[in-house]
């Protein structure tokens, strides 16, 4: 056995998320490749939450998988809800007080699925309470899989270091007790470490934050909204160490307007939200476009419409972000595909925003934002800030006439030199109204044409700077998947499985929605279509929004689609089943 997939389930508030974190970090430190996904309900207590921890020492794991080897259940629902996910020979572990007899079908028995009751609740009472339950469960998982407990012990010591000796001691006791309760080792996993380099365990939101800090982001205004809230929490936790002003604003309208104000003043400013909050921000997105004020907006999509499924994933906001705000204005919409790209784009977004004096949107989703993977520390050498055409009190004169500065001076690339408040000679009004080169209000047609064309011209230069799309895959592909965002990791798993079936699948991920690399994408698609190859669109939504965007930009309508919109990220098996 080279890969194990473990589900830990229970009601909200029972430490499920923390159990996934502790186990995930211990596996990371032990040299495994690991993915931890969280599926939570939009409530603080009760309901049914679960984590899936998928890991391997022999190969790299990219994404979660629906089918699991072990289910560690804190309540009956965590058994009942996952009966169809258990693999042949899989194991359910649960407290002895939970009666599951009626759930054990002939079919499950025939597939060799086992049910193992343990003295979870009784042991917890001896240790001093429910808070030790998750560590005890981890102990049992380690016992069943033969993984060295030393890594979990270390994580416990680090995690609870500031909570006192007693807490640490009790957790270690709970771990030991859990190990004993496992009885014999039932799963043989190859634990030979293939890769010994130290890695980080982090999610997409964490990576965006790291990229933003590296890029000099010093102002964050946000209103909490799942799944973007951890951006607010993480940046707030770094406020002192990195001198970042973090404002929990009164609403998303305020948050967006604040970052426009901060961007105008000359700070690198960011907000993060999800679809509903973004809807409130849209008017100010257009203001950033018209006033040519740099700012960065992270939109972590969740399942809509309206409040929808607040804690579930979807890629349903592509059109909302593409068309945010009335009128036409230049903007950049970036779609990172994995945690590494979240860091890269989290960093680059600020350079593009300042260089082109535009709002930049980083579009993620719940799955990417909150799924933990382990990767090597980001290589920061060569990352340089580019603040674009900034004017100082000497250079501002080159863009002035009779002592008045032309904030919106026409130029070849559409970008005007920018004087920040505090710069002598740079007085002007940045405005949401149409304006002339000075920023004064005039409504005549020639000026309107000049300013519209000046603004939109920025897109040409921007597009030429963005890396063009590339197909991932070797040799001549048998087929092509076309997708975006968090589907990247799922498709990496899919491609690897197809390889085992002697099928060479290629992948085209669209990283930029505006500007769109129409010609490049068209020629890639034509290459496969003209050769009679299968081209399959993969999206986590109902209306195939990416497919529509591709069609309007290339004239090519992709008819073969794999879509999912139940709130749970599709996995490689889902795609393989749909292909068959």
């Amino acid at each position, binding site marked *: 056995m080279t890969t194990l997939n473990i589900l830990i389930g229970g009601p909200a508030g029972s430490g499920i998320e923390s159990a996934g974190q502790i186990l995930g970090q211990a596996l*990371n430190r032990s040299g495994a490749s690991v993915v931890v996904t969280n599926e939570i309900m939009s409530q603080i207590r009760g309901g049914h939450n679960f984590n899936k921890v998928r890991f391997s020492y022999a190969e790299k794991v990219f994404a979660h998988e629906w089918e699991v080897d072990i289910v560690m259940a804190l309540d009956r629902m965590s058994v009942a809800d996952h009966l169809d996910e258990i693999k042949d020979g899989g194991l359910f572990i649960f407290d002895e007080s939970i009666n599951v007899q009626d759930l054990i079908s002939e079919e499950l028995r025939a597939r060799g699925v086992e049910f193992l009751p343990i003295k979870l609740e009784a042991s917890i009472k001896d240790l001093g309470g429910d808070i030790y339950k998750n560590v005890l469960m981890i102990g049992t998982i380690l016992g069943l899989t033969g993984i060295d407990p030393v890594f979990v012990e270390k994580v416990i010591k680090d995690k609870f270091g500031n909570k006192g000796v007693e807490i640490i001691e009790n957790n270690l006791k709970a771990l030991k007790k859990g190990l004993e309760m496992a009885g014999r080792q039932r799963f043989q996993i190859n634990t030979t470490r293939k890769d010994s380099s130290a*890695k*980080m*365990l*982090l999610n997409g939101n*964490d990576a965006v934050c*790291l990229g933003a*800090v*590296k*890029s*000099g982001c*010093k*102002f964050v205004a946000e209103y909490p909204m799942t799944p973007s809230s951890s951006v607010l929490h993480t940046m707030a936790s770094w*406020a*002192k*160490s*990195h*001198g*970042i*002003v973090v*404002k929990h604003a*009164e*609403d998303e309208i*305020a948050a*967006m*307007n*604040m*970052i*426009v*104000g*901060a*961007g*105008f*003043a*000359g*700070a*690198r*400013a960011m907000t993060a939200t999800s679809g509903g909050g973004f809807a409130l921000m849209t008017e*100010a997105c257009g203001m950033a476009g018209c006033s040519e004020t740099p700012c960065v907006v992270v939109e972590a999509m969740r399942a809509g419409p309206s409040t929808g499924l607040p804690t579930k994933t979807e890629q349903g906001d592509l059109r909302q972000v593409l068309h945010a705000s009335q009128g036409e204005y230049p903007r950049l919409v970036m779609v990172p595909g994995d945690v590494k790209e979240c860091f890269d784009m989290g960093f680059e977004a600020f350079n593009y925003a300042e260089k082109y004096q535009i709002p930049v949107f980083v579009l993620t989703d719940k799955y990417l934002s909150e799924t933990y993977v382990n990767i090597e*520390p*980001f290589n*920061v050498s060569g990352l*340089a*800030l580019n*603040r674009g055409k900034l004017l100082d009190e000497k250079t501002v004169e080159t863009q002035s006439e009779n002592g*008045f500065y032309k904030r919106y001076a026409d130029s070849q690339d559409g970008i005007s030199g920018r004087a920040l*408040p*505090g*710069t*002598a*000679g*740079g*007085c*002007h*009004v*940045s*405005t*949401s109204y149409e304006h002339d080169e000075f920023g*004064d*209000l005039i409504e005549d047609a020639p000026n309107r044409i000049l300013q519209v064309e000046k603004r939109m011209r920025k897109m040409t230069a921007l597009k030429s700077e963005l890396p063009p799309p590339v197909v991932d895959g070797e040799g001549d592909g048998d087929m092509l998947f076309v997708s975006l965002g968090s589907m990247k990791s799922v498709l990496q798993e899919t491609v690897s499985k197809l390889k085992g079936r002697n099928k060479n699948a290629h992948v085209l991920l669209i990283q930029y929605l505006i500007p769109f690399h129409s010609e490049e994408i068209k020629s890639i698609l034509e290459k496969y279509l003209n050769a009679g190859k299968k081209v399959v669109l993969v999206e986590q939504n109902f209306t195939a929004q990416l497919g529509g965007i591709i069609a309007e930009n290339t004239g090519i309508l992709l008819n073969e689609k794999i879509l999912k919109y139940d709130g749970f990220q599709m996995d490689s098996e889902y795609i393989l089943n749909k292909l068959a």
Partner: protein
Amino acid sequence: MEMKDLQTRQNPNWCPGCGDYGILAALKAALIELNFDIKNVVIVTGIGCGSKINHWVKCYGFESLHGRPIPVATGVKLANPDLKVIAIGGDGDAYGLGMGHFIHAMRRNLDITYIVQDNQVYGLTTGQTSPTSDRGTKSKSTPFGAIEVPVNPIDLAFGSGATFIARGYAGDLKHLTSLIVQGVKHEGFALIDTLQPCVSFNKINTYDFFNKRVYKLEEDKSYKMPFIDENGMFDTSIGDAMKRSREWNEKIPIGVFYKGFRPTYESSEIGLSEGRPVEFDNDIDIEDLMAGYM
């Protein structure tokens, strides 16, 4: 600094006799008296006739969206606290669309001065009722009379923790100039609700209406400014201020209702204690942050 130093390329396009001329003149006179370097002054406005005011004062300006001068001004101030930030908007900006921001800004106590051009009508959209219109006001949007009671900005400011609460009158330049000077000098959020006749759409609250009624709190020896502590607690001394904030039909008080002290938001903001967000370091170290995930 002289008046000509504040001259921009254009001149105001307000209706002849508009109260905004008085506000503009007082603002310029106040800036001259304060003698700030104009490169460090930012006037953030909303949308409306009056919000075009920053186009006619030579300093830095941001003309934002209807209702949003306060959050934009907040972003400017928090990004660079060295700037003198004055927010200006109408009664629709402040007490209609932007009511939420208005209240939060006061409890936040940023060092921002907010001049509200309160003409009790929506001028730029040609004369609909506003949040400060009197009950019964007939307008295009309320042809049978406004049913709601008007918002009381002074009362709201007391309830929201503003540390400087004043009412000005566009028809008394000298007095309004003095209020703006005091408001800008005040360390904390200063509200200057300004009575502003709209000559085109408000035929009731005219210069004549106000001239007959306004009196200055500073000249009324019987007015005792209330005491409010840093946590917002006050005693019965607030009663007189509350009573006067409701005076309208017979006489209307202008001047400073309240001036107190509470530390500004900026002075307690932890990120600012490490420097201004507009300062740049070209090689920010994130090694420690990354180590936190290992």
